[in-house]
């Protein structure tokens, strides 16, 4: 949805476009239903496509496990930094640390320590990429299977219309990778929904 559509939604008080029921089942621009997500991972296809799916499932499982290891390391760094901050705070109370030079040095250590802590939190937040990549892969598998089924069907029953052809580009493109890149869009839809409900 572009800005003009958001504006129209906000200004017009018109009903947000409802998903046509037929389209809801169509492969175009649809998030993968959970049931499909489960079946993508669970059902091996007789033709061997289940192998690819299983491989992808393994890849996502491994990246999730490894991501958790990175998170463990970041947690440990965070705890060490917190411990360091506590030690420096204790040090500040000592008589020998009351000179201006010592106080300045202590403040610099505390400031650097806070910066490390912030960077650790930032790195933790960046680990969202793992879940996002996993979901992208699941969608690709879902659409690959649809393309596979379509081709099998096509060879059996003749050519289908363009509309029935699976399209993955829209759904994949919708999944962002930059933090909050969809925030304004989502907020605009929420506001439009709420004002329409009030009206």
């Amino acid at each position: 949805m572009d800005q003009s559509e958001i504006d129209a939604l906000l200004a017009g008080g018109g009903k947000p476009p409802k998903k046509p029921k037929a389209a809801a089942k169509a492969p175009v621009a649809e998030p993968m239903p959970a049931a499909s997500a489960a079946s993508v991972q669970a059902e091996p296809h007789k033709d061997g496509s289940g192998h690819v799916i299983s491989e992808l499932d393994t890849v996502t499982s491994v990246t999730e496990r490894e991501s958790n290891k990175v998170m463990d390391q970041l947690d440990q760094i965070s705890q060490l930094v917190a411990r360091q901050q506590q030690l420096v705070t204790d040090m500040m109370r000592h008589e020998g640390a009351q000179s201006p030079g010592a106080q300045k040095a202590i403040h610099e250590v505390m400031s650097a320590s806070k910066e490390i802590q912030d960077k650790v939190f930032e790195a933790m937040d960046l680990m969202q990429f793992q879940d996002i990549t996993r979901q992208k892969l699941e969608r690709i598998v879902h659409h690959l299977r649809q393309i596979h089924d379509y081709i099998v069907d096509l060879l059996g029953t003749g050519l289908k219309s363009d509309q029935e052809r699976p399209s993955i580009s829209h759904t994949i493109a919708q999944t962002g990778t930059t933090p909050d890149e969809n925030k304004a869009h989502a907020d605009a839809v929420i506001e439009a929904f709420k004002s329409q409900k009030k009206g």
Partner: protein
Amino acid sequence: MKILIVDDSSTMRRIIINTLSRIGYTDVVEGENGKSGLEKLGQGGVEMIITDWNMPEMDGLEFVKTVRGQNAAIPILMVTTNAAKEDIVEALQAGVNNYVVKPFTPETLKEKIESLLG
């Protein structure tokens, strides 16, 4: 305040828990899909729900609809990669109070939680 986090990604649950702890919410329970989310909710004490949409067994939308059948008041925040307008509207119609699209910043999560609790 006890917050229920429902997401099939353990990495994502940790990220949300970390963000929550930074803004002062440390009492959390976790569910890895809608079904286990309902179980945790049934154990009582949950005052707010943060849920993903795409999950196996029971997805976030079905989970929200089930929760709303039993509890109309509990604040629900959906955190998902689904960014299409139709999806956001569908979630709101199901009973979600607010919506965050992944990837998010901690500031956004904080803002949404505070607006729900405020």
